[in-house]
């Protein structure tokens, strides 16, 4: 196409101005793809880790259980029926009993969530194998965040006080047998994990549980009276919302960069049409219609985005690829905010992301180029040839 060829010549001829515009635009490309890639990577990782560590294929919640209402926790326990037990024995799910307790590390008082989990379970990544009891002590595992907050190390004993089903207080010492590291803070912050049977015994709730976490492969395996199934959509909604917020936040960088680039291109176009009137007139004298000149100038402006895509590919591909391989290290302490985030995020870029970005940039650039170029069709060719300022 002739307009493409001529537009390319014009752009290449304009050199520095062209490359400045193209560079800013290419930054918009790379930043958007990179940011979206990081967000996607984070989303993937957060989902993966949450599924692996916490929710498996979904959870059955005892009907009173509401994680946002600590006052209901004492009522949120139900009998593990025979049917449920069969599913547990078949490795389709694992029960967890949740209760409130108080921990006294080094004489301080710390409110905790005491959770009983089956030491032999393989449904979630929680390293419950460290909960095998030895010499009559109560083994407990905690996450690195809880360990740090309470200055606890492996081998430490810490006193825990809880109430049984009748409201009677009791206390005992647990021994920290393992400190695990997880990217899922809700499995760590303020939680002490102990063997399920021990917990049932302590609270006098034999054969009871609060939630039943199903295996990734199984998920929903039928209705159990008194238990409500919570699927991934529900259980991951918090992550989804957080990722969405981050996405919007990140889009602002893109919008700023895009606006910058669009402003530069719009300005270039307006200036071009003003300064290059003689050129416009000459094109008309040489046999172009005004409409063809409008097209030429529009293509010329829009071509910035094509060059930007190429430039972005040249420096962006190795950069983004490197990021995807080495990952992007989160600043130290990010995980203390309670976000489900790994120390290193591996961005994941999709074809849809790359093509979507390219399409957005191309369309925007074309529109921004066309708007000022329309003026050309209103010019008098004879005035344009003389470069008469209108």
């Amino acid at each position, binding site marked *: 196409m002739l307009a493409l060829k001529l537009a390319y010549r014009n752009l290449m*001829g304009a050199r520095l101005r062209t490359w400045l515009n193209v560079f800013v635009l290419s930054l918009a490309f790379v930043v958007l793809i990179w940011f979206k890639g990081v967000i996607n990577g984070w989303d993937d990782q957060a989902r993966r880790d949450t599924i692996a560590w916490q929710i498996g294929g979904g959870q059955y919640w005892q009907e009173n259980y509401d994680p946002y209402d600590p006052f209901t926790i004492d009522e949120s326990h139900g009998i593990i029926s025979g049917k449920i037990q069969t599913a547990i024995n078949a490795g389709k799910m694992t029960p967890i009993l949740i209760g409130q307790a108080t921990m006294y590390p080094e004489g301080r008082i710390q409110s905790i969530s005491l959770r009983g989990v089956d030491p032999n379970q393989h449904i979630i990544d929680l390293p419950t194998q460290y909960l095998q009891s030895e010499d009559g002590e109560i083994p407990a595992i905690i996450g690195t965040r809880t360990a740090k907050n309470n200055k606890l190390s492996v081998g430490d004993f810490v006193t825990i006080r809880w109430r049984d089903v009748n409201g009677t207080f009791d206390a005992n010492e647990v021994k920290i047998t393992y400190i695990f590291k997880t990217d899922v803070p809700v499995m760590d912050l303020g939680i002490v994990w102990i063997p399920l049977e021990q917990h049932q015994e302590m609270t006098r709730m034999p054969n009871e549980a609060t939630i039943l976490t199903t295996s990734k492969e199984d998920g929903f395996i039928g209705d159990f009276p008194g238990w409500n199934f919570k699927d991934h959509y529900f259980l991951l909604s918090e992550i989804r919302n957080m990722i969405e917020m981050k996405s919007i936040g990140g889009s602002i960088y893109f919008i700023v960069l895009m606006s910058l680039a669009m402003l530069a291109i719009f300005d270039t176009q307006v200036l071009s049409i003003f300064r290059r009137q003689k050129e416009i007139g*000459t094109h008309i004298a*040489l*046999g172009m219609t005004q409409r063809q000149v409008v097209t030429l100038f529009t293509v010329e402006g829009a071509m910035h985005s094509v060059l930007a895509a190429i430039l972005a590919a040249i420096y962006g591909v190795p950069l983004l690829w490197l990021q995807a391989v080495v990952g992007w290290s989160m600043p130290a302490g990010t995980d203390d905010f309670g976000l489900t985030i790994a120390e290193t995020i591996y961005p994941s870029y999709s074809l849809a992301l790359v093509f979507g970005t390219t399409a957005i940039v191309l369309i925007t650039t074309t529109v921004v180029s066309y708007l000022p170029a329309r003026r050309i069709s209103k010019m008098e060719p*004879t005035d344009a*040839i003389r470069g008469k300022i209108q």
Partner: protein
Amino acid sequence: MKNGQLITIKELVKDYPVGKGYFRALEDINLTIGEGEFAGLVGPSGSGKTTLLNIVGSLDVPTKGEVNVLGQSIGSLNARQSANLRNHSLGFIFQTYNLLPVYNVFENVELPLLLLKMEKDKRRELVDQALEWVGLQDKRKSRPAQLSGGECQRVSIARAMVKSPKIVLADEPTANLDAKNSHNILQTMEKLNQELKTTFIFATHDDKVIQYLHRKISLDDGRVVNDEQIIKE
């Protein structure tokens, strides 16, 4: 086209809107221009030379009257048709050269051929030939900014001539040139006129140009006041 006339102008009037009224730039022009002429529209500044040339070049339209160029009635052409006429049959040379600053010499001369959608090899051949006509073969890679005024005008002659148009319209082509360069480009155009039978129409008030003309059409105040053939020995 009757009797080998390329251009026939009858009772042409051109008014420009000015404020609430209009300004009459051309009044009752009647002219015919034939093949191979080397004619000039001569007259003082503001006499209507450029206006007439632009109408013949289909860049502007008559207010009244009939202007026929190569069988086409200028007033009735649509944008596409008038662009086609210019593209195929008309060459333009401007006082200010109007070269594209970001194109090199070769690309400037090549542009009309690109618009004609000509093959690459053919374009190269024709551009080479046109550059030879004006003696600029060794400047093909230069940009206009690196050329003298005389060289620029030669490039613009090459650009006008490269497609071997029927008619070349040259508006004050020497106005920005010194005497030596003026003579040089006039001799070039005279030679092309003789060899290729291209019709040249100048708009000028430069005596250096006038002395080369074979026909001098004098304009004053938008009217033709004199039209004389100049016999060269």
